[in-house]
């Protein structure tokens, strides 16, 4: 008898679930990881940067070959240490109504220079001072010459008045992008200014659940972070659209070049020949994944389309190991995160390398521990992906002798005087050829991008670096596909 109220309460809860939902015109986007910080000076995670591209505008964008092109402003190089930026006419006003002027640009970059907890601040330490010429024009004076300087000006511009008020941009962003911030409780809601279309972004970590939400109609759009079997499953469903695109995010195996075994070029070549990349791409990667040879893709102005692929050849790999004086099996430890797809790839690599006489031990660590171990050089092999890389200075930062941690990204502690000289000369074809020959990384692939959406979602397709810029054009048509 005493249980009755509980049963009634449970019944009411169930009934609540059966309520007719009010018409909802927002476009719902389920994402794997919610943004962390919507202040562009602090944002480092992919989700925050992708959202910030919608809310803020930057001085500079990139063309198809990843060369910097004017966005908010055009520029002139007055001297190797002096750049002048002029705002274009009719730039959009900030979402709180103030016009965007050169003073806002100066305030944004000045604020970066004085913040000591902003991850991007180090990029701008070369700025000596910023001088306001007029409401449309400002000059950047550098301490050292920097030919790539315009490509660094990719921080979203913030309004000066709100910077001075120490506004909480992290949680209530105000920019002049195509979307304005509406609210951020459990989901982030943005409003497209052109037509007042609402777009919500909700974190759903589990890929299976994201797909179930799409099938239930709780979400309209998914992008990336889906295992290939789910993509293949969705491709069989006529009620949804699956769109793929070539990607530019570079996956690789990192090697510890201070390890006496991995120091030997023949061992590194053996590892490259022990991996059947074609089979992995065909079997467990999404469509449009393609073989990679260096960090920047062939279409990038500092990429290299003429580099040969290392063929899968376990017999040759064995020979190379024996010629290096290695007693087989060669025992190596491979560190990776706990991400299911990463662990799966690790087990495939383990099986493939076994045929070449390499006994790969997998250590799967939580992200914080894994990344800390990589940065400390506490590894033999690890697997990671470079995301959203635009400028060729990545080659210096990753392979340059002077960029070993904690001063840079040369996690493998690679030292090569020849490469250093080529990097200094910015001879990108020679740089990429040298890296490809010496194999301080084992290149894997550029992962294909995938977006899945309801039938009534139009004008959306994935971008090569996984950004969400096409939310600026996405539309929902009147009819909706019914899923069974």
């Amino acid at each position, binding site marked *: 008898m005493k*249980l009755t109220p*509980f*049963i009634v309460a*449970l019944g009411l*809860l*169930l009934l*609540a*679930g*059966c*309520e007719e939902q009010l018409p909802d015109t927002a476009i719902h986007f389920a994402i794997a990881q919610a943004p*962390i*910080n919507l202040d562009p000076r602090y944002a*480092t995670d992919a989700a925050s940067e992708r959202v910030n591209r919608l809310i803020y505008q930057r001085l500079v964008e990139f063309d198809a070959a990843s060369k910097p092109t004017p966005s908010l402003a055009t520029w002139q190089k007055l001297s190797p240490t002096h750049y002048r930026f002029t705002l274009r006419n009719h730039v959009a006003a900030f979402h709180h109504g103030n016009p965007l002027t050169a003073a806002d640009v100066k305030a944004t970059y000045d604020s970066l220079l004085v913040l*000591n*907890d902003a*991850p991007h*601040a*180090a*990029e701008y*330490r070369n700025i000596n001072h910023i001088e306001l010429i007029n409401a449309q024009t400002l000059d950047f004076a550098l301490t050292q010459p920097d030919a790539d300087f315009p490509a660094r000006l990719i921080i979203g511009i913030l309004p000066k008045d709100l910077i001075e008020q120490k506004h*909480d941009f*992290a*949680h209530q962003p105000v920019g002049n992008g195509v979307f304005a911030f509406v609210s951020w409780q*459990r*989901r982030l809601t943005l409003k497209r200014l052109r037509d007042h279309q609402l777009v919500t972004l*909700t*974190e*759903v*970590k*589990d890929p*299976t*659940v994201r797909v*179930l*939400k799409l*099938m*239930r109609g*709780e979400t309209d759009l998914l992008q990336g972070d889906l295992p290939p079997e789910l993509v293949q499953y969705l491709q069989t469903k006529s009620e949804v659209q699956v769109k793929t695109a070539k990607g530019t995010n570079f996956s690789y195996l990192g090697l510890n070049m201070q390890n006496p075994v991995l120091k030997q070029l023949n061992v590194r070549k053996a590892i490259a020949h022990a991996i059947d990349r074609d089979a992995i791409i065909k079997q467990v990667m999404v469509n449009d994944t393609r073989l990679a040879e260096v960090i920047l893709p062939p279409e990038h102005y500092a990429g290299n389309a003429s580099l040969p692929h290392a063929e899968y050849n376990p017999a040759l790999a064995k020979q190379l190991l024996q010629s290096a004086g290695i007693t087989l099996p060669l025992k190596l430890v491979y560190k990776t995160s706990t991400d299911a797809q990463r662990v799966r790839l690790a087990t495939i690599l383990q099986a493939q390398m076994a045929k070449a006489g390499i006994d790969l031990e997998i250590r799967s660590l*939580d*992200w*914080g*521990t894994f*990344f*800390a*171990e990589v*940065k*400390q050089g*506490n590894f033999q092999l690890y697997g990671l992906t470079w995301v959203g890389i635009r400028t060729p200075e990545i080659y210096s*930062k990753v392979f340059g002798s002077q960029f070993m*941690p*904690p*001063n*840079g*990204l040369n*996690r493998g502690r690679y030292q090569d005087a020849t490469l250093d000289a080529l990097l200094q000369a910015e001879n990108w074809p020679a740089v990429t050829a040298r890296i490809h020959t010496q194999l301080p990384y084992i290149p894997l692939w550029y992962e294909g991008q995938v977006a899945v959406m309801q039938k009534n979602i139009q004008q959306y397709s994935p971008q090569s670096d996984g950004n969400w810029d096409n939310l600026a054009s996405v539309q929902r048509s009147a009819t909706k596909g019914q*899923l069974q």
Partner: protein
Amino acid sequence: MISRLFGFFTVIFGVLVLTFLLIHLVPGDPVEVMLGESASMADREALREQLGLNQPLITQFGTYLNKLAHGDLGQSIHTKTPITELFKTRYPASVQLALLSMLIGLLVGVPLGVYAALKAGRWQDVVVTVVSVRLSAMPVFWLGPILMLVFAVWLGWLPVSGMDEPAAIILPALTLGFGLSAILTRMTRTSLLEVLNEDFIRTARAKGLSERAVIVRHALRAALLPIVTIVGLQMGSLLAGTVITETIFSWDGIGRLLVESIEKRDYPVTQACVLAVALSYVVINFLTDIAYRLVDPRMRHA
């Protein structure tokens, strides 16, 4: 009472010390996470100083305890959100989920256990035993999506995940509740079977009481002690956050917050979450002790 309070503070202090030490021993620190690898040593040191991470561990711990004593849990290093603000939504979400899961576990598990005990050795007992063993063997990362598929996608009765609708709690609660009910079924059956062979049950029957009265008033009450123990232990685990279930169902509870904070090396959030979990356990243990005394009068004077 004094010894109980002493035990309470000892446990909490031990948890604080251990958490503080362990989180600082794990590789990686918040400065690395915040600034990335491109930052200069000077920037790193400046931020370490700003966050107080350059201080000796004992000083950092003393500062932390001092703030805690003044009710200041601090703020997230990454989002700058006060931890009390985070807890205002996260902890009630975990409590709601825990209570409903336990309710489902009790409503399903105890009657089934009683039924199985009464039909011990017969086919009904076998069916209940097989079902409960199967349920307890189902991992939540499998059961959760199956329930989503059936109740959300196929039948369309409930939302798949999230916290936007009141009904969104039902599937995660069922996912956890089914597992609990299986444990409670087994425990109730075993405990009741032992009691049903006792002399006082024979006496009750000899007095002419109805079978229902014998079971409910005499046998079940006597069999409740181990069930209360299990409920207490499970409730503690539920309040500590059920990370996998919360993750699958996008349920913003304390478990997800704890795991995310560990991944980001967000020390203040991790410490606050572990403190909340420890407090939950202590309180639940205390309530379990009270429940023992209510169920078994002999323990009131123990």
